[in-house]
């Protein structure tokens, strides 16, 4: 599905844009989660073939021709895993944000650059 593919890429780019331009740590994490979502949409779009149904074997699907009627299930499986992993990473990022804030009372990434060169 070309539109969803484009949508996925657009979200990815907007997310990156957000990560690059926003100074607020939470905004950066939001940007990251948008990137994640965009990636997921891209993956699902790749697996989608128009006119086919979900890879669930129920009455609408003819068992004999199942392979031809359903979309490829593997991308879906990948996305499922990726979503969970994405959540984990997002959560971990946020816990870093909390800890950073508790220590330094600032959410601006500009305040965390004494490590350099």
């Amino acid at each position, binding site marked *: *599905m070309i*539109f*969803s593919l*484009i*949508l996925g890429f*657009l*979200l990815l780019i*907007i*997310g990156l*844009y*957000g990560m690059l*331009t*926003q100074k*607020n740590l*939470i*905004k950066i*994490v*939001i*940007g990251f*989660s*948008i990137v994640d*979502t965009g990636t*997921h*949409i891209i993956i*699902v*779009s790749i*697996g*989608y073939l*128009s006119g*086919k*149904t*979900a*890879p*669930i074997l129920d009455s609408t699907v003819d068992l004999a021709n199942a392979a031809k009627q*359903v*979309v490829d299930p593997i*991308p*879906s499986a990948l*996305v*499922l895993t990726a*979503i*969970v992993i*994405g*959540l984990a990473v*997002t*959560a971990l990022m*946020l*816990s870093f*944000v*909390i800890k950073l*804030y*508790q220590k330094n*009372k600032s*959410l601006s990434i500009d305040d965390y650059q004494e490590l350099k060169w």
Partner: protein
Amino acid sequence: MISIIIIVFGIIMIIAAFLAIHLKNLLSAIISAGVISLLASVIYLLLAAPDVAMTEAAIGSGLTTIIFIFTLKKIKKGDLDD
């Protein structure tokens, strides 16, 4: 048909994404991000991936948003402590 829905949702998602990035209010930004995930789950459904749609709705838009809000609360609370 599906294309049109995807285009419409897509436009909304992109707007939401911009809002999520540019809104000054963090809570609104978080919710905008949640909206993106929610709409994404609809798109998954349209793309014949109901299982992904369910996961995304639960985890992507639900759990993630909750974690964000939790973080926000933690931080706000920390502010009051001072």
